[in-house]
Structures are given as C-alpha cells and as structure tokens.
C-alpha cells in the first residue's frame, strides 16, 4: 500500500521540495500550511507519517504535536520535526510533546528519504 506523508510547513518552497522528493519515491503527500491545518488534515486522512516545521503561524509545530497526540488516530504515527535549530531545548520539548524524530534544515533529498524510510519502512 502506498504510504501517505503529511508535510506541514508555512514555507511553500519547502513543502514543494518535500512533496517532490517523496512523490518521486512513490509516496503520497498531503500538504498543510500551518499546525491548525495540519491537525485537520492529520485527523481526517489516513497518514503514515508527518513532517512538521516548528516555527509556523496559527499553531506552531510543538503545539500541533501536543494537540495531535491527544487524538486517538495519532497513536503510532511518527512525527518528524523539520527544524533549523540545533536547539536541544526545543528538541526536548518536541519529544516530550510526542515527536518521533527530527531532521535539521538544510537537508538533502536523500537524507529526507532516509528518515522517512527509517520511521515508516517505506
């Protein structure tokens, strides 16, 4: 079965890059422009992994993770942070909120694919 990845980022170029990379690898991609939109999409679609930015308007990445992890459908769904920070504190907060892993921007396409493979097996 084709796996579906949700990418949440307020930067359209990043979303496009993620989508291109993942679609080329045979994955389905859903996009959302902020955490609130991401929450709606994550809870109304079947997703197999979520890539989320931290710094976003409306609902930021950590808020999104907290809210999403309250939802029963989030169980077992890996959430990967896209972050520019090597900030340990933010990472710690995100993990506490329920993030599975992270990838630091700038990343290369194969790094992204490696991470996705790591958490979804796809």
């Amino acid at each position, binding site marked *: 079965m084709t796996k579906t990845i949700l990418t949440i980022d307020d930067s359209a170029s*990043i979303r496009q890059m993620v989508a291109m990379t993942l679609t080329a690898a045979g994955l389905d991609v859903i996009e959302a422009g902020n955490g609130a939109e991401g929450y709606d999409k994550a809870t109304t679609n079947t997703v197999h992994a979520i890539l989320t930015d931290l710094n976003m308007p409306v609902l930021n990445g950590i808020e999104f993770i907290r809210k999403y992890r309250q939802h029963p459908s989030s169980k077992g769904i890996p959430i990967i942070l896209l972050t520019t920070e090597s900030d340990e504190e933010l990472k710690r907060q995100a993990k506490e909120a*329920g993030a599975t892993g992270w990838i630091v921007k700038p990343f290369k396409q194969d790094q992204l694919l490696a991470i996705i493979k790591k958490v979804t*097996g796809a």
Partner: protein
Amino acid sequence: MNISDPTETFRQEARELLEQLEAGLLDLEQDPSNGDLINSAFRALHTIKGSGAMFGFTAVAEFVHEFETAFDQVRKGQSHANAALIEVALDAKDHIHLLIETPEAQVDGGEAILANLRSVIAGGAPSKAVSAAKTPETAASTDPSPVPVVKSTWRLEFYLPSDALIYGTNPILLLEELAQIGPTSVTALTDRVPELKALDPEVPYIGWRVDIEAEDPTAAIDDVFLFLRDNMELSLTRLDTPPASQASAAPAQTTTAAPTEPEPVPAPKAAAPSASASSPSPKPKAPAGADSADRAGASSLRVPAERLDELMDRVGELVIAQARLSQIAGLSSDTALKTIAEELERLSSGLRDTTMGIRMVPIGTLFSRFRRLVHDLSGELGKPIEFITTGEETELDKTMIERLADPLVHLIRNAVDHGLESAEKRAAAGKPAKGVVRLSAVYSGAEVSISVTDDGAGLDTARIRAKAEENGLITPETKLTDQELHHLIFAPGFSTAKEVTSLSGRGVGMDVVKRTIDGLRGTIDVISRPGEGSTMTLRLPLTLAIIDGMLVRVGNGRYTIPLAAVEECVELPEGIEAHAKGRNFLDIRGALVPYLRLREVFGTTAEPEPHQKVVIVSSGEGRVGLVVDQIIGNNQTVIKQLSKLHSGIKSFSGATILGDGTVALILDTAHLVAAGQSYVDRNITGRAA
C-alpha cells in the same frame, strides 16, 4: 517560470515574505511595542533562513541568521524597535532581496549592514560571529577509528522508552535497520513483561538482544537509535576477543546508553564561508521577468501567468465562436438552435467574467510598495509625511497593476518632491508640519480611478507657463486657462534637465507617465488648487483583454474603435471641402474638431460611400473625427496583440476576430487623436502666430 521548480517557488515566497517584513517594519515604526508585529517579522526571517539554506542560498541564510539573531533581542524585549533599528532593518531587507534575486552576483555591503545592525541593537552588544547555523545532526560523525577490517560479534541489548510505540517508533523497523549493519541474530527479552492484568498494550515491555557481526558497529548503531538514544536503555558489548593485533585498538568493550554523546564533531569551519565571500550558484533561473507575480493572498494557488493568458485566449476564441453561433441562430427559425445558442451565450459570458476575475489582483499589493518609497523620500528630503492609502481592495487586471507601478512611483515622487512644501513654508502657510500624501483607488463604472493627492502648494502655473514658453510649447501670446496650463506638464519635452533633482527626473517625465497610461487605454487628469495641493487622477479600464468596440467599415476593411473613446457619430456634411478652405475641420456645436479621412490614412482605393460618417473620438483632451464609410455597430471585442513584426505600426493597437471569422484591426485612438491634434497645431497655432 517553471512551476515545478522549488527554487523559483522559494524566490516567490521570499519576495512575499520580504514584502511582509517590510510592511511589518514600517508598521512597527508606528507601533514599536507591538509584539505581534515583532513576532511576524521574526517568523518571516526565520522562514527565509530555513528555506534559503535548503535551496542553496547560503549567503542568504547566513545573512538572515544574523539579522534574525539581532531581531531575537527585540523579540525578547532586550532591545527596542526604534527608528534607527528599523532603518537598518530595512537596509538589511533590501540586501536580502538582492541576494535572492541575483545569487550569482557578488553583493557587497552585507557586513556593513550587519555591523550597523549589531551596533544599533543594544549599542554594539553581542556580535556573535556567524554561529553554527547548521551543526550536522546526523550523528554519523562519531569517528570511525582506523581499525583494520576485522569483524567480531557485538551484543546489543536495548529497551525502548515506554511512550515509544504511541509516539511512532516501530521496533521492527529498528531491528531491520540493525540487520543492515551485518548478520544479526535477535532474541526477545521478556523479563520485563508484566502480568496480564498489569499489561498496557501500548507499552513496549519487550527488550531486544541483537548479536551483530561487524567491524565496529558503534556509529551505525548510534544512527539507528538517533531519535531515541537520549532516553532509552542500551548497552553494547564485544563478545569475542579480537586477534592480538587488534587488542590495543579497542580496549573498552562496553559502551552504555547514549554512546559518544551528544556533541557531534563540529564540522570543519571552512564549510561555513563568510557571508559576503560566498557566491552560491543554484540554477540561475531567469529572475527578472516573472517578478511580482502574485504577491496577493498567501492562501492562493500559484499559476504561471502564461497559463492564464492562454486560458484568456481560449475563452476569447470561445466567445467569438459563440458570437458566430448567435448570429447564425438569429437568422434561423430553428427554435432548438436558438435555445442552445442562448444557453451558450449565457455560459460563455459567465466563463468570460470568471476568467477575467482570475486575473484580477487587489491593488493593495501595489500600494504597499509605496509605503517604503514615501518612507525613504521623507527621510531624504527631511519632510515629515503622512501617507494614507485607501481602496486597497480595488481589483485590477494583473498586467495593468504591473504596468502601473512606474507611473505611480513617478506621481508619488512628484507629490512628495514638488508638491509638498518644505516644513518652513508649511509653517508659514499655517499648515500642519506633516504633509499628507494620499493614494486612493475606487471603482467608477467599468473603470477604476486611482488618484495621488498631496496637500502641498499646488502647481505653479506661472512657472509652468514660463517653462512651456521657454521650450516652445506655447507662445507668450497663447491664452490658456489654468486647467490647460496644468495639462502642459504632460506635454513631451516639458520636463527638462533643470527640473531634475536627485529624486525626481530619473529619465521619466510626466509625458512618459501619460504615454504609459494611454497605452493602458486610460486617462490622466490633474486638478490643482493654489495653496491647497493637487490631485492626479488616473482612470483605467478594469481589464486589458476585452473591450467594447464600435465596428466600422472603411473601403473593404473593417476596423474596431474602442467604444470608450467614442463621443458621438455624425454625418460628414456633403461638400464640406468646398467651404473648408483646405482645412479639415468639422463644426461640432460651435467647436472646431479636426477630422481624418481614414480612407486616406489607410490608402483605401475602393469606391467611397456617398454619405460618409464621422466618428468623433477623444483621448485625453483632444478630439478628432474619423471619417468612415459605414458604421456597422457595437461589439464586444477580445483583443489580440499584434505580432512583434507589426510593432512599428502606430495606428493600430491590436486586432480582433469577428463573428464571421475575419480579422478586424483595432484603431489606436490615442495615436489618431494626436495625429489630428498635430494637424490642429499646424493650422491654428500657425494662424495665431
């Protein structure tokens, strides 16, 4: 523009963000403690940094990183968004813009701006050198000590944290990853599995013992548990003793949890070159052209402009085909055909309106650019200015908005530079010190009128007159009303070198403004009251793609005259030449209007109609009569541009396809009126002199 190129998307996005940033900074100037503004400025910077680094704009990322660091102090309240800071921040924003638009060029000045920024922030406070914006996180860097290739068996035992399963970690995937390091044998450790009563199915009680045959798997294992190693139990032991030659190489056999923690070896500093020196070259995609595409709403769909043009073209052709059908249906007595023709007419006009709607962009996107202009001018000239914009939501065709930018810049410069008086003069005239420049847009019928108003001294008619006489535009005897004098500023060659200050006069005179507006089938008007200020009003059609036209016949050719320009139609009095004493003037209710025989203009040889008609058209202030053989009627016309080959042709502004499939050329009324006027000038001013 390639829609599927993320680099281009990044540029677009960065442009939008920079505009947002600029607007935010300007707002912040008014309201320096507004936390929302500071946050959104910070976020814009952050996104540019993150995406910039992704798409190879390292110079951008590094510069923005410092900018962001500085701004973070403002966000944290350690520094204030005072005027000086905003000034530097605006410079910085411009610098980023340059870096993004011309990544291959060496853009200097970044260091200076950053230095300024740092000194403004808390008077030369923390100037952290370009800090590690990117410590490689992929812990792969735990150094592979140079051990000869000798494999041994390693025993790994691990227990996952209790929330690992719910939080998306899949132990099977971890085991699969481990299996890729080398041949493994896996044993499940069930010692921690509680009694059934106490068992929480979501908790991974089972531990795993994995024996791996590998040379030195520490780094690889570290990688596998990259996301977990901080809070899990993990131990790694070497089982077999290595051959003697190896003994010294790997002494400590047990690495416990979180091996070689957590500082990855810092990347060689050379990888982070100084901001100004580096010139990253991501595919240089033609940056100039597709600029400013859709600066509008953030939640919009990006479509290349060409596709819209193509759609518009197709819709245009559909409308034409539909017109033919209606024509045929009108002649037919077949009611079924009539019904479907009517239905199609309704649908296609709806489709046309929707398509036009897609091209409409709120003019606010353009207006917001001028805030910066006024801000800069105000600083340069030392004139305090209040800049008020209204009607930002007014929508205009996108192409139109792009082409309006330059004329409006010119008008606003003029208003600030020439219109508004100096502070002393204003004080003397009893006006508030702050001059007001108002930019407004409003719908009026099928047109939009955009005006630039200042509350300055108004146009100096005496000076205009002197200048016009000096340039030979009028003679000292010519009697002109104030209104007519005001219009002289639009005359070609009126703007002279003397007039050029550092701000105005960048080679664009008011005549160029007028030409641009004419080209958009618009008009420009000026109202000025001495001591109270002046208003420049542009009137523009909502769209460039479709016009209402009047179809006329000259000889065997059919031509369309834009209906907006048509004032009236009259018969050409018979034998008019006889009384005209060689001059082609019509008496329209007491006013003399020159006329042009289109037959002569176009060199038509076919037999003329005995009763010729005159279509009186106006453009700006002038009027001219166009003598035609027949007036066929009104039609809605989709404008097709003439090809480049025909760009030299002055009398036509485009072409259209008629209902029967033939082509009609669209007359360029502005040019014809000008031709008529020069005829007037030769005859009337010649007589007056």
